[in-house]
């Protein structure tokens, strides 16, 4: 059941992975004095325009180390409200998880725990789920719940960031930022001991990231590509995640991205995830 929970979350992933952790490609360190402060870089990333609302199709391809692949098709919606961000994801295929849906309210107040629900078609029940297991992997992918929640943001509440140099990713120059969890407890919760990211400082998007597990071993590499302006908003259309520990990888493909069509209010309700699309 919990697995299903996680699954759902996945989808929202929308943009994700990029967000939290970043890491470096090749780097050519320059003197720190010439580099912008990490606080400013993080502020730029987190204030980047994501649109008030968006709807999009998300295709997920998962491949294990033997080359076996699985596919998921979803449709997701996200909308910002005064005090929170709401995201809903509907699974469209394959048949065995079709109609599974995930709904989350991500509150601005960091002290307030997110509210999450999962609709399980096999049980025909909307189930309330805990939002605190943020280091768990969702839907069989290589992204954690926290990765999904952050979308394109970076968590300054969990990490201390430091600008450590410049880098290149996808032939674009950028700034290399290192993130270190603020406490051992946070590191355990998230499953990361360090992150290193290459941030495109023209558009303030992370293009490449690496994550180390709590034992200090390289865990994941995330590559964001096919970034384009859609309806005036920079949007990533491909995210590739490679898990070095398991040999498993995940590719997210975003399409039909639409920031302009109205997203109905009542789609972010438990009734809506029960009815499906």
């Amino acid at each position, binding site marked *: 059941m919990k697995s299903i929970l996680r699954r759902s979350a996945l989808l929202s992933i929308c943009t994700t992975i990029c967000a939290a952790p970043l890491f470096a490609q090749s780097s050519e360190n320059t003197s720190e004095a010439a580099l912008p402060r990490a606080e400013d870089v993080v502020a730029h990333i987190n204030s980047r325009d994501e649109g008030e609302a968006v709807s999009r199709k998300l295709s997920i391809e998962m491949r294990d180390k033997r080359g076996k692949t699985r596919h998921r098709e979803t449709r997701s919606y996200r909308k910002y409200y005064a005090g929170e961000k709401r995201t809903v994801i509907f699974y469209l295929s394959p048949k065995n998880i079709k109609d599974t849906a995930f709904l989350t309210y991500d509150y601005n107040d960091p002290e307030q725990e997110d509210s999450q629900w999962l609709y399980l078609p096999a049980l025909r029940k909307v189930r*309330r789920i805990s939002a*605190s297991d943020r280091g768990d992997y969702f839907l069989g992918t290589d992204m954690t719940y926290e990765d999904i929640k952050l979308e394109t943001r970076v968590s300054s509440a969990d990490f201390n960031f430091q600008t450590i140099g410049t880098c290149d990713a996808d032939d674009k120059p950028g700034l290399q930022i290192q993130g270190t969890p603020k406490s051992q407890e946070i590191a355990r919760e998230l499953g990361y001991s360090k992150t290193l990211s290459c941030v495109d400082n023209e558009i303030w998007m992370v293009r490449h990231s690496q994550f180390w597990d709590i034992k200090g071993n390289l865990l994941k590499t995330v590559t964001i590509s096919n970034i384009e302006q859609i309806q005036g908003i920079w949007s990533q259309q491909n995210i590739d995640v490679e898990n070095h520990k398991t040999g498993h990888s995940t590719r997210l493909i975003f399409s039909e991205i639409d920031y302009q069509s109205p997203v109905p209010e009542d789609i972010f309700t438990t009734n809506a995830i029960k009815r499906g699309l």
Partner: protein
Amino acid sequence: MRLNADCKNLAVLTFASAKVAANKTSVLIIKSRYLLTAIATIIFAGLGTLHSPVLQAAGLQSSVIASALWSADSGNFKRQNYQFTLEPEFILRFDNRAKLTALSRLRSISLDALSPENVTDNAYSPYSKPLFIGNSSEFELREFYLEIPSENYYFTLGKQQVVWGKADGLKVLDIVNPQSYREFILEDFDDSRIPQWLANIETNIGAWDAQFLWIPDQSYHVLASEGGLYTPTSPLLLPQAPPAGVSVDVEPIERPERLLKDSDIGLRLSRFWKGWDLSLNYLYQYDNFALLYQERSLTAVGPHVTIEPQYRRTHVLGGSFSNAFDNWVLRGELAYFTDRYFLAEGLSDNDGIAKGKEVSYVVGLDWAGLENTLISGQLFQSVALNRQSATVRDKSESTLSLLVNHTLLNETLELRLIWLANSNIGDGLVRLRVSYEWQDNLKTWLSSDTFYGSEEGLFGQFDANDRLTLGIEIGFE
């Protein structure tokens, strides 16, 4: 606990079912035509409320799930059953966001003791009854409903399932649709729930979501009939056999048949308030278990008992809540039944039934503190109130449940344990399952269902039916 309370009296129905007169069936069929006409009228009236041309289909989706099960006795590995199921589904979408869904099921079973036909088939309404093909197969229109969204309302009209409760393993508020107990509670609820023809109308009243149900379709719980693998034998469910020399006769069951007066009515209000999911529920329904009233008399040839199965109404008032705290989710449901009928103990009651009231509730705690793991515990309790005479069941009955679910290999491998334990009698059921997703739409699983405890208990009565099951499921789109 709902299951205990509900199951009372059932088994005997088994005997009654066989006696439903043929002429009665024909009358029901004629009446069913009127009902179907009424329902069709409602559906088309709903369509009429739509603006644009009604039947402009925008797209048709179709899919099929094929599954096969092989089960064997856990003790001697003797084959228990083969089962093959096909479930085709069609969804027709219209330009105006209306949607028509049709889901059917063709099932074939090798074992006579689990035969689809070997149930109390008088519990089905004539328009919801599956079509039995020979002794081993059945075809059933599981669902057929039209969804019509409009500005302020959302209509779902037709044959469908409505699920209120959120408890795992047993039911407290999930009582809108009746259930098939052909395999006791081993079948998934989605498969064992009996869909009904009904009108489901949802709207908003202030901050509350409101759901109104009108259920003219009178189907009731279906039980395994005599000779079935899961025919109930527990004295909690079945009246004791009369002493030697007492003759017994079972009258045909009297089914409520009035379209309006015998309809079930439901209302549910729900909302999200300060982190809490809350609901208030009301249901005016016929209890889905038949009551086995006894009429005792002295005839020229000796004492005689006539059993007169009947369905009786009850009001149900209830509610539910859930909230998440850190790694924990706390949830609960409560249902209060104004009119409950329990099996009377011995001859303490003239007609064998003791009327009373019942409060049934469940409190559950889910913990997600370990990676890819969910551990959930629940306490179910049922309390019988204001009983007119002594009853076979205890005043208070409790069942504990434990669920442990763990996934591995990027959720392709899933391990699950469900343990249900009744604390009154000390019996229980342990269910283990390992499933593996080989690829999209191809899954296999191995499971075991082990009953234990006294044969007088709800679970212990099936102690001889422990089973291992191997299954495969393939989806086509």
